[in-house]
C-alpha cells in the first residue's frame, strides 16, 4: 500500500519534471514553424523533420560544432584522466613536503572558479586565444583537480603490496603504473570520466570566452549563436531541433554505459 502510493507520487512528479520537457522538445522539433509557435504537446499535423534537420545542419553549423566538440572533449578527457591519475599516484604514495603542497594547490581548483579573463590574456600572450588548443588547455587545467582529488583518496585506500611486488619483480615506475595501478583505478576513473564528459561536453561559459570564429565553435556555442540569430522570437521548432541534436551524442553514449554509470556513481563517488 505504502509502496504503491510512493510509485504513484514518483510517477506524478516524473511527468512534469522529465517526461513533459523531453516530449515537448521532441514533438515541436518535428513541426513546421507555424505549428511549433503554439508550443502544444500534440503530434505534428505536418511533419517537418527533414526541413528542420536541413536548416539546423546548414544554418546551425551542427556538423562543425559536433566536430569541434569531439576534438576538444575527447583529448581533454584522455589527458585529464592520464595526467590526473599519474599525479594522484604520486600524491598518495609520497610524504614529500613539496608534493603535498602541490596536491593542495591542485585540489584548490575543485571549488575555485577558473579566472576566465586572465586566461584569455595569457592565451593571447602565447598566441593561442580563440583556438581549440587554448580552450582545451584551460579546460584540462580547470578539471584535473577533481580527478586528482577523487583518485588520490582512492589510491590511499589501496594496499601497496601489488606495487611493491611489481617493483621487486623488476618493473620500473612507468610499467608499475601502466600494468598494476591503472587497471585498479578503473572504477574511480569511470566516475571521473562521466563527470568530465558531462561538464566538458556541455560547457558553454568558457567556450563563449575562449573560442572565436564559427570554425572553432563547439556544440553549445553553435546552439547559442543559432538561437540568437533568429530576430525577434525564437523559432521553437529549429531551436528544439538543435537542442535534440546537441543533446543526442551524450544520451546515446549514456544508453550504452547507463548501468555502469549509475552503479559507479552510487557506489564509489564520495566516501569522505
Amino acid at each position: 500500500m505504502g509502496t504503491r502510493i510512493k510509485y504513484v507520487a514518483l510517477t506524478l512528479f516524473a511527468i512534469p519534471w522529465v517526461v513533459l520537457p523531453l516530449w515537448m522538445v521532441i514533438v515541436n522539433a518535428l513541426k513546421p514553424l507555424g505549428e511549433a509557435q503554439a508550443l502544444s504537446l500534440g503530434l505534428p499535423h505536418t511533419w517537418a523533420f527533414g526541413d528542420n534537420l536541413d536548416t539546423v545542419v546548414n544554418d546551425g553549423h551542427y556538423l562543425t560544432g559536433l566536430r569541434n566538440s569531439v576534438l576538444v572533449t575527447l583529448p581533454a578527457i584522455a589527458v585529464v584522466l592520464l595526467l590526473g591519475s599519474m599525479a594522484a599516484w604520486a600524491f598518495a604514495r609520497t610524504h614529500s613536503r613539496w608534493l603535498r603542497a602541490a596536491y593542495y594547490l591542485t585540489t584548490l581548483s575543485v571549488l575555485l572558479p577558473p579566472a576566465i579573463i586572465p586566461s584569455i590574456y595569457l592565451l593571447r600572450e602565447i598566441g593561442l586565444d580563440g583556438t581549440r588548443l587554448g580552450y582545451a588547455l584551460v579546460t584540462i587545467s580547470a578539471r584535473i583537480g577533481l580527478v586528482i582529488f577523487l583518485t588520490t583518496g582512492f589510491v590511499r585506500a589501496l594496499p601497496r603490496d601489488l606495487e611493491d611486488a611489481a617493483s621487486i619483480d623488476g618493473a620500473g615506475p612507468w610499467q608499475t603504473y601502466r600494468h598494476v595501478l591503472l587497471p585498479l583505478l578503473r572504477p574511480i576513473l569511470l566516475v571521473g570520466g562521466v563527470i568530465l564528459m558531462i561538464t566538458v561536453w556541455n560547457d558553454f561559459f568558457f567556450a563563449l570566452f575562449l573560442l572565436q570564429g564559427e570554425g572553432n565553435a563547439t556544440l553549445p556555442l553553435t546552439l547559442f549563436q543559432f538561437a540568437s540569430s533568429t530576430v525577434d522570437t525564437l523559432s521553437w521548432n529549429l531551436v528544439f531541433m538543435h537542442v535534440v541534436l546537441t543533446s543526442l551524442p551524450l544520451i546515446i553514449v549514456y544508453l550504452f554505459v547507463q548501468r555502469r554509470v549509475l552503479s559507479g556513481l552510487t557506489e564509489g563517488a564520495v566516501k569522505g
Partner: protein
Amino acid sequence: VASTTLTQATGAPEQTAVRASEQPTPRRRKSPREGRHWPWFALPAVVLVTVFFALPFLLNAGFAFSDWSGFSDEIGFNGIDNFRALIDQEIFWPAVRTTLLYAVCMLVFEMAVSLSLALALESTTRINTIFRSLFFIPVLISPLAAGYIWKGMLAPNGPINGMLSFFLPGTVDTAWLGDPNTALPAVALIEAWKWSGLVTLVYIAGLKAIPKELLEAAMIDGANAWTRFWRIKLRMLAPALTFNVAVTLAIALMAYDVIAPTTAGGPGDHTTTLNIAMRLQWGQSFFGSASALSLTVAVLIVASAVPLVMWMRKKEVN
C-alpha cells in the same frame, strides 16, 4: 580525507630520514632509486594547473584593480576604481544580491528534490533503477539547452501554464521568466532541474553507507520513519551533504549558462548575476571591471563554501 592526511604527515618517517642523511651514514635507504620518480609523475599535472589555473587566478587579483580596457593598450593600476564605478552604476551590490539569492533558491529546490528522490529510490530494485535513470537524463543535457527547453515550458502559452489552466479555474498565462517576482526563482529552478539527478545519486551512495544495524536498532527502540530520517539518516549523510552543498554553491555562484538563453539578465536586472554582469562589462571592453566582478565570484565561493566545508567536517567528526 583531512584526518588521514594529518596522521600521515605526523607519522611520516621521511622528515627524520632527511635529517639523518646529513650525517655521514644515512640510516634509512631502501634502494637507491626509491621515490625518485614521484615528482616526474606529478609534474605534468602540476605544471598545467600552475600555468593555466593558478597563474590566471593571481593575475585576476591584479586585473581587478587595473584600468585594462579595450580603449587603450596600456594596463595601469587604478586601485578600487572599478569597484567604485560598478557600485556607482548600481551594478555591483544588486548583482551580489541576485547571485546569492540565486544560490539560495537553487540550493533549496535541489536539496528538496534530490533528498526526497534519494530516500524514495534508495534500495536497488529494478523499478527504482528505471526511475534513477529517468531522473538522471537532465544531468546529461547542457545547462544552455536546459535553458531553451524550460523557456518553452514556462512560456506564457507553454505547457506549464497549460497544465495549471487545466487544474485551476480560469486561464493561467503568467510569463514566469518575464515577471520580476518569478524570474529569479524560475531560472534557479532550471539549474536545480539540470543537476538534481546527479545530486540524488550522491545521496543514494551516502544512504547505502549507513550501517543497517543502526537503523534496525532504532526501529526496535520504536523510532518511526520520520525520527529515523532526522536523527540517523540526515546525520549519517553529512559527508554527502557537505559535498553536494559545496559543489552546488560553487555552481550557483558561477551561474551564467541557464540565464543567458532564458532571461539574459532581465527583466530589468532581476536575474543579472555577477557572471552575467561580468560578460556585459567584457562586451563593453571594460576588462578591468569584468575582472573585478569575476574576482567577486571567487571571493563569494571561498567565503561561503570553505567555512561551510570546515563547519560540516567538524560536525561529521562529532
